[in-house]
């Protein structure tokens, strides 16, 4: 066993893997944000609240209809996605032509309302949600104990991330979507229902947040403020990756997870600031973000 800066290499491998797993949460959440910003030009500040709604939906489904973790993984994102589509139809569609600031303010306000309602009914301490039976236990990898659930998190997140990337960048549907953001009038002329496509896209982005919420429920505290704790970091990830860049969001999500993980070993006190330091540096050197196109 050799040492790197006084830390045994085996411990360091463990930390790298942990970082990658946390990064997969950042990637899932920033992916949704990037999709929404890239396609709708809306800075979706209620993303954290929608992530929380996903976790709460999982809890409520279990409590009131006996639906366990696996069905919740599908049902909760659909339900929350539908609420997202309602929000888009009622509020967001009036804002596309206005400055980004309006969308940001609206979604921020919605986030406060959603959190406030959740806190009013369920308190702030949190709700219990146990690990699904089939994913308990873990593997001893020699250098660390890897819980089965974390392995599942990383697999699921990678699949969803690259699936989304593939659909948007490599398929015909994705091509329509991208074209609709460039020139909606022209795409409509080809007989494509652009407003409906936009609604569905927002619903999908919100569903991604809810999916991350269900994934988080068994391991993180399910409380009304769980999203607002995370959303600031996720925004930093999106800014570093380049606003609206899907690949940027994914790669930066995983990368920053690893960097944060390493900070937790070498200087744990700074682990919640390191991402913002990186953000400041990236903005100084490449104002459009690592993967952003200069507009």
């Amino acid at each position, binding site marked *: 066993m050799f040492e790197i800066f006084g830390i*045994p290499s085996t*411990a360091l491998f*463990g*930390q790298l893997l*942990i*970082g990658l*797993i*946390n990064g997969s949460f950042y990637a899932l959440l920033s992916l949704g944000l990037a999709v929404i910003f890239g396609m709708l030009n809306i800075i979706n500040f209620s993303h954290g609240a929608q992530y929380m709604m996903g976790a709460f939906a999982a809890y409520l489904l279990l409590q009131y209809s006996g639906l366990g973790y696996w069905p919740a993984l599908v049902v909760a994102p659909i339900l929350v996605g539908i609420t997202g589509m309602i929000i888009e139809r009622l509020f967001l569609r009036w804002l596309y032509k206005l400055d980004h600031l309006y969308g940001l303010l609206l979604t921020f306000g919605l986030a406060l309302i959603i959190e*406030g309602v959740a*806190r009013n009914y369920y*308190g*702030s*301490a*949190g*709700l*219990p*949600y*146990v*690990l699904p039976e089939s994913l308990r*236990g*873990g593997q001893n990898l020699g250098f*660390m*104990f890897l*819980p089965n*659930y*974390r392995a599942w998190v990383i697999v699921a997140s990678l699949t969803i991330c690259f699936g989304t990337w593939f659909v948007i960048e490599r398929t015909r549907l994705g091509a329509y979507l991208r074209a609709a953001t460039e020139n909606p009038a022209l795409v409509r002329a080809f007989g494509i229902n652009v407003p409906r496509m936009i609604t569905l896209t927002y619903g999908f982005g919100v569903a991604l947040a809810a999916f991350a919420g269900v994934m988080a429920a*068994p*391991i*993180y*505290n*399910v*409380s009304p*403020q*769980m999203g607002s*704790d*995370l959303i600031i970091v996720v925004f930093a990830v999106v800014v570093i990756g380049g606003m609206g860049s899907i690949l940027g969001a994914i790669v930066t999500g995983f990368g920053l997870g690893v960097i944060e*993980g390493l900070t*937790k*070993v070498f200087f*744990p*006190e700074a*682990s*919640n*600031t390191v991402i913002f330091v990186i953000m400041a540096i990236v903005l100084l050197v490449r104002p459009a973000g690592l993967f952003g196109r200069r507009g």
Partner: protein
Amino acid sequence: MKRTIGLTALAVMLACGTASAQQVDVKIGVLSDMSSLYSDVGGPGSVVAAKMAIADFAKANPNVKVTLVSGDHQNKPDIGSQMANQWFDVDKVDVIVDVPNSGVALAVSQVAAQKNKVFLVSGAAASDLTGPKCNANTVHWTYDTWMLANGTGTAIVKTGGDTWFFLTADYAFGAALERDTKAAVEKAGGKVLGAVRHPLNTNDFSSFLLQAQASKAKIIGLANAGGDTINAIKQGAEFGIVKGGQKFAGLLVFASDVNALGLQTAQGLTLTETWYWDMNDANRAWTKRWQAERNAPGKFPTMVQAGVYSAVTHYLKAVAALKSAADGKAVVAEMKKLPTDDPLFGKGTVRADGRALHPAYLLEVKAPAESKYPGDFYNLRATIPADEAFRPLKDGNCPLASG
């Protein structure tokens, strides 16, 4: 006609004037975390507890007129001290109660001393409030870091948990709790192998848990609170901490945290509290009233909220005895002179350094099978008598105690 109205008005004014000469006016401010991680520990539940204390007191003492205000300090010391200043100067508040979050409480304590008002601490934990940072205007009621450390730390070392690793929240409270627990563990013959300081409101503890696992310590001491403690224990179960032979010591675990974890995850956890709702009939009756007032039948009050009730009751007794709430130092001196006595914390005293003394209870979280009804959380392991539960006066380095 006009003249009679004028005369009547004058008479009414005079009557009010003479009435207020006998009547004692008190304004109580509950300053708490209303919207974030400690709002179930204190928060709106503390406001309800204060209301109940005022209602109970008013029955026996109709001449004391109490008004209540409440506010949210958002866990920020600057906002907390700014609000305290405004309450004392502009809104004429006589006493601030609760204040979870030690960082905020230390700031408010200084403001209370400057303005010669009163500060009753229930929510905050740092033992420094009655130690080096003590003052003649602050009374620390419910619990403190020394008492938690001594209760849980000593008990665990005695049952064989003699090597420790700390996960510590990186602010005043975490540092105080780690320091006090370290002292208790070492005094009992245990050893501390290491510690890691995590930022407040950390979401993911897996990295810290791996470090704790690598330390091979028998006990992982959680010198944090609220959501941080819940996340650490929840993820500890996932990482097989307990199965691997290590155990958690929750140094500050509230009933609301146990509820959030669920007994399945929390079972076997040892913790110390000064009040538990299901301890006796008086507590159960009070809990019922609290749930009705709070309109939250499924919630259970924490020791912090019960402490608010108890502290406000004692404060009002002191004010009634003095017939004035104006001089904060005098009220606190009176609180120290009078013995404490209320249905929730029983009989006790307030010491020269501002520490309220009452027994503490070493509790263990029940397994799901043992729990018979909602809120049936704990088995009582031991009762620590009042004179042993808190730090001896001479060890606190409080200037008030030596003088």
